[in-house]
């Protein structure tokens, strides 16, 4: 990094001459320029830049270290200890006991299975519906350029963002209301009295979550579709392609990289973060039928008050999160090239 190269040509010329202070002794700008060029050799300046970068990032890094890195490290330690605050305030070394419990526990196996099913189904629904709406909406936006047309598409866009803007807690309450066996409109319309969250708990939770996160997929897909050159559509239309063929052979292949990254991101996100919706609607029940992994960790901590078990579960969750995060990065990289 040559310092002079980064300057506007006129200034750089002066600077290289090294005679700034001589030719214009009075002006402030020139004194500063002189200071920069005489005092900091290229290497020193580069080091100063690096230090500046580190300095700027330092507060955030310290914060993340104190409340994320250090807790995770202490978690690792805790996972090898027996610690049940209710029984005893003392922790004792437990070796691999917590992990042995984890590997053998039906509760854990069930929880992992429930989380996998939840993730796969929820993401699949979001992707299909989100993509369909995005493609149709994009078509409309491109074709309707009149004032009422734009009003319509703007209004639709505003409506579709609503679930995303709704706090998960409120969304969960809405779905509880909607699917209530006594006063829910769904049962009333179907003339049934199914207690959806009790009889079909996992499916109900999946629907509620897919509703909440569908806008995320929709708007990412929408942007991807709109970024396709209109000429490509004209060519397809001149070739006599119908709507479906246009989507199948033109739109979809072109946005496939975005589709893949979005689906991967949503899957990782759903797998690691699903909590609020399940907690408010079923609480993990009936029994443990919808006890997704984050909820299992939480219940082990605060309901069963077994911090040792909870720590082992949390360590597994973090390892899985990290692996998923790394593979997500790999997918991003692969799809952007």
């Amino acid at each position: 990094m040559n310092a002079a190269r980064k300057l506007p040509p006129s200034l750089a010329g002066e600077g290289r001459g090294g005679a700034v202070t001589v030719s214009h002794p009075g002006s402030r700008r020139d004194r500063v320029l002189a200071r920069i060029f005489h005092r900091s050799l290229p290497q020193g300046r580069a080091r100063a830049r690096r230090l500046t970068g580190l300095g700027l990032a330092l507060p955030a890094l310290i914060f993340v270290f104190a409340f994320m890195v250090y807790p995770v490290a202490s978690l690792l330690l805790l996972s090898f200890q027996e610690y049940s605050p209710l029984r005893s305030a003392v922790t004792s070394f437990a070796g691999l006991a917590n992990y042995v419990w984890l590997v053998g526990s039906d509760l854990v196996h069930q929880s992992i299975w429930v989380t996998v099913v939840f993730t796969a189904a929820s993401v699949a629904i979001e992707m299909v519906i989100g993509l369909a709406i995005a493609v149709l909406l994009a078509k409309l936006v491109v074709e309707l350029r009149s004032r009422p047309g734009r009003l319509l598409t703007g209004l639709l866009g505003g409506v579709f963002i609503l679930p995303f803007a709704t706090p998960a807690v409120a969304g969960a309450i809405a779905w509880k209301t909607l699917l209530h066996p006594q006063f829910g409109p769904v049962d009333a319309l179907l003339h049934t009295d199914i207690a959806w969250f009790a009889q079909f708990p996992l499916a109900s939770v999946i629907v509620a979550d897919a509703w909440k996160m569908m806008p995320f997929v929709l708007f990412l897909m929408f942007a991807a579709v709109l970024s396709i050159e209109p000429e490509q559509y004209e060519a397809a239309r001149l070739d006599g392609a119908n709507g479906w063929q246009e989507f199948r052979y033109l739109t979809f292949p072109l946005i496939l990289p975005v589709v893949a990254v979005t689906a991967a991101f949503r899957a990782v996100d759903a797998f690691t973060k699903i909590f609020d919706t399940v907690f408010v609607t079923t609480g993990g029940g009936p029994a443990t039928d919808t006890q997704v992994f984050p909820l299992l960790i939480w219940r082990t901590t605060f309901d069963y008050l077994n911090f040792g078990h909870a720590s082992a579960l949390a360590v597994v969750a973090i390892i899985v999160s990290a692996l998923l995060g790394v593979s997500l990065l790999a997918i991003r990289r692969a799809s952007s090239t």
Partner: protein
Amino acid sequence: MSVLARSMSSLPRSRGRLGWGRLGIVAVLIAAAVATLAPFLWLFVSSLKTEADIFAKPLSALHAPTLTNYASLFQQFHFAVATLNSVAISIGVVVISVTLGGLAAYGFSRYPFAGSRLLLTGLLITRMITPAALVVPLYLIMNALGLLNSLISIILGIAVLNLPFVIWVLRPFFDTVPHEIEEAGLIDGLSPLGVFWRIALRLAAPGLVTVALLSFIAGWTDLLFPMSFTTTPDATPLTSGLLQMQTGYKIYWGSLMAGGVYITLPTLILSFALQKYLIQGMRLGY
């Protein structure tokens, strides 16, 4: 415009068919919009009924809308305090995220240092961490610091999970600020911090709005940390306050519905007003 008009007129044969197709698309989209809106709309309409009406006539129209459910939020369920707590938490998260995240994103964008790429990748991976996993050790730390049952513990927990996301979203905004302007600022005698404050922040303002909005929503909607770190009403925000309406033996449906609408309104209004920024955040944040 004229180019577009000409290109359209070159396809006269598909005109009429497209009209019907377009109508079909509009119909499908409106149906989808109604379905999307329905859960919240239903919640809103039901929240205006009395508890007796909610149970008696599920599908009946709204005869005599009443605000009793909303009044009960404040009379029975400490919603005045909870609202203040939620506001305080959200503002706390915004301040920490935007200050620390802004500085760090700027540092990563403008002054890369040895290992900064690795740190950035690490930060992206921490975004994938299961929040519930962090609750266990954070609970013990907050306990040791005497911060349980205070808003500070909640703010710190939400902020630390939000910060990597903020850095990730904000960095591209700083990348687009032209170097020359900042170089000029440096030459005019500003320190790097001065350049950040006077030049870069202003030019990256849309990014700041985006992360401030998303940080606010993160603070406003979080349930996990309040539920884990507090048991006193003094430090209970709206999210966990709402859940006190569904106790083991009774669910206060009317209040629960009103509370659901109440907690949604701020994020809803902000999201509509700042829709552009929200969508930008979605696109950059993943």
